[in-house]
């Protein structure tokens, strides 16, 4: 590894960092043995965290940041003056193996700007994955960002080598896509998602390996005027129709070399956070998009409180909930109770009638849950849920008196 390669690594890691996805989970167990290298265990590992709080799990780089496309939100668009660089296939392979051997990463997340043509670019990316797997017996995680404009045969090949394929939708409506990413097309992107989903499902049924950790996508939030409701409806459709494992939300963040078409002020990062919380409610807590959106105003989520609490405050008549009687579905709707805490409650209450003290050991979110609960020794007097200042009481952290 010489200085020139380190310099390129700097450019092409910088160029790749706006993709939010980093997960290395969901792969089938695999090991490289004495001739190969590496293993996947199913659960991902975060090998470091950067000061933006994000996890470093995969070597996330672009093959090149030269690009013929002109997507305004992207630092690598052809009209940007950013510094350009390009890896060879062998260089990416060497970097991946070198960092993997030092236990810095779980594997590779490879994406690329479009050079020459989508097919040419996708084939180069596929060659990286193929070389790692076939020539080096690499058994670590490989995530390939799929270029939706590439020919279908390349997707069929990519799925042989990758643990996960992803196709970024980037913007929730065709209208925004047309305005901000002139070379992209919503229909093409969804067709590829459909193709990938079909192959993944078939391979699973036929016990073959094809992108075993599924597919994911990313939506950029705050670059266009789409509401949270619209974003969540898009996600809901993607989960249902294309069996996506994850939809990542990336709050549009200022980039060097920004285009003049973009909003001057980036959206609050909190918006991205609330969308992730809402996404979880959608997938694991039995909420509908309609219910989640009803917690906010005008199709936007409440930035001040989490979407579950927001929903609960607008549906106070459904509370308090008796932890010793309520079913799982209703317990999951109690603010402050996570899915693990709910399962522990269900298992523990078979043996004993739960009191507040018990709940304190079962859940770490009791302070927020308290007004919405009934326990064996606790019944909120006069209906705490009716208090108008409930929201204030829950959001301002209880402060201790300072002594002089």
């Amino acid at each position, binding site marked *: 590894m010489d200085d020139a390669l380190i310099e390129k690594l700097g450019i092409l890691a910088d160029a790749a960092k706006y993709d939010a996805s980093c997960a290395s989970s969901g792969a089938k167990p695999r*090991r490289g043995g004495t001739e190969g290298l590496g293993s996947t265990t199913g659960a991902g590992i975060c090998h470091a965290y950067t000061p*933006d709080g994000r996890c470093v799990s995969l*070597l996330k780089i672009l093959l090149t940041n030269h690009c013929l496309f002109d997507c305004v939100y992207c630092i690598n668009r052809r009209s940007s003056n950013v510094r350009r660089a390009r890896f060879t296939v062998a260089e990416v392979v060497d970097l991946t193996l070198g960092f993997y*051997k030092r236990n810095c990463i779980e594997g590779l997340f490879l994406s690329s700007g479009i050079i020459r043509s*989508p097919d040419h670019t996708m084939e180069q990316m596929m060659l990286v994955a193929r070389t790692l797997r076939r020539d080096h017996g690499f058994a670590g995680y490989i995530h390939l960002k799929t270029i939706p404009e590439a020919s279908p045969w390349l997707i069929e090949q990519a799925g*042989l080598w990758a643990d996960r394929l992803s196709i970024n939708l980037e913007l929730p409506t065709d209208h925004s896509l047309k305005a901000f990413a002139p070379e992209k097309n919503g229909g093409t992107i969804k067709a590829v998602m459909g193709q990938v989903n079909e192959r993944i499902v078939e391979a699973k*049924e036929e016990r073959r390996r094809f992108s075993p950790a599924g597919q994911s996508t990313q939506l950029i939030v705050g670059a266009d005027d789409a509401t949270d409701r619209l974003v969540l409806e898009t996600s809901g459709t993607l989960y249902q129709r294309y069996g996506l494992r994850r939809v990542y939300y990336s709050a549009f963040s200022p*980039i060097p070399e920004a285009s003049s078409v973009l909003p001057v002020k980036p959206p609050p990062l909190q918006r991205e956070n609330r969308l992730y919380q809402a996404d979880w409610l959608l997938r694991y807590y039995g909420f509908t998009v309609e219910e989640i959106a009803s917690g906010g105003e005008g199709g936007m989520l409440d930035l001040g409180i989490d979407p579950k609490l927001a929903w609960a405050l607008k549906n106070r008549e459904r509370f308090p909930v008796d932890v010793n009687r309520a079913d799982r579905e209703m317990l999951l709707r109690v603010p402050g109770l996570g899915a693990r805490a709910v399962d522990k409650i269900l298992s523990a209450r078979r043996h004993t009638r739960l009191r507040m003290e018990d709940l304190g050991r079962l859940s770490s979110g009791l302070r927020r849950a308290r007004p919405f609960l009934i326990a064996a020794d606790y019944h909120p007097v006069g209906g705490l849920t009716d208090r108008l200042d409930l929201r204030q009481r829950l959001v301002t952290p209880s402060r201790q008196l300072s002594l002089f």
Partner: protein
Amino acid sequence: MHTITLQEGADLDGFRRAVRRLTAARTAPEEVLWSVGAPSLFGDDALASDADAPVFLPQAVGPLIETVVCHGDPERYALLHRLVWRVLNGERALLDQHADPLVHRLERLDKAVRRDIHKMHAFLRFRALPPTAPGPEGGERYVAWFEPDHHIVEAVAPFFVERFESMVWTILTPKGSLHWDRRRLMTGPPAERPDALAHDRVADDRFAEGWLRYYESTFNPARVNPTAMRAEMPRKYWANMPETAAIPAMVRSAPARVQAMLEAEAAIPRRRMPEKAVAAMARQAPESLADLNRLIQRSEPLVPGATQAVLGEGPEGAAIAIVGEQPGDQEDRDGRPFVGPAGQLLTAALEEAGIDRESLYLTNAVKHFKFVQRGKRRIHQSPTAGEVKHYRWWLMTELGFVRPRLVVALGATAALALSGRPVSVLRERGPMAFDGWNGFVTVHPSYLLRLPGDEDRRRAQAEFVADLRRAAALA
């Protein structure tokens, strides 16, 4: 009162033996004092019996004990003994009672150990050592220094062995060490931090230096959030992670970098718009059959087996294209379609029907021979529906170049590939509209080869020839 002394660290064996004896002697937890020191001692003679009968515990208890003995808490053995005692005295389902104070405490110890193991898997860094002598495989050796909170050195070993089985490596910690020579795992005594792993020695390993650059570059200064970082990567780990040396400067310079981005005016592109390249980008599809074939040849088989891709054969512009299932054993060796026994039968039937084989375009739905090896024989395997779809785009693009007036599907696989749905050949044989093509379905000649009776075979063969005549008439 009994005093039981176990070995330093995670003495699972000692604890197991002690529990067996304590259980046999019906000794209650209140009567036992646990301590640590080498060698393990079981105190008085009442317990030093040979009552080593296994104790039967509910399934979840064993794994919990294995984890909790790794904890550094001096009370761990006493707590576990209380758990075993209660489980054996009427509370079999105790572990379900997550709100019970003892269970709650043990769960927290369990969680702390698991977290420690997970963080060691994650945050340990190997450094490549310069080869001192020509060892195995070029003498590449890796060494790591790590300081775990708990006694987990042996618990993490399987992970590192599995992942880095092909490397020679050493892991040193103040709680013990591990060495793997590509065949055997050796455990060793506690170690001290070796000089070679000091922070200022990064330059000895260019990859360590490259990693530092990667870490700095993947950070987005517009989203600086050190609290979130520290929650997952507490400071205590930083000393052994070379990349963390860059953190203070990264955090310090972040606000200025963001301010500069916000203030910068949208710049005018310095380079000309690459009009030609943008226009050329759209011309990526293969422009000829030869182009397509090159692409198929350099691609990986999408079925297991196959030594080479077997491409279609015949003139472009042929009136009829015949599509079979996949190349067989002979085709895979020769690299040509329909040259094996089924192909010879097809040639004979075509002759009988008065059709010139040379005038046809012959190809397969799947371009590779799928087989399993049994001894010296390579046994044909039918491609699955999913595998057929992997090849579909190639087939359809191929037909697009040949532009036949009629596409004849031989057998169910070809019919599936062409129509996109499962087809029952015997029931639906005859004309059929394929995806954009006039089509015709008939049996695959290998079906004729498999028919047992001579009479049946003759009749089926006559029907096959009749089908070919009909198809030729349609074209």
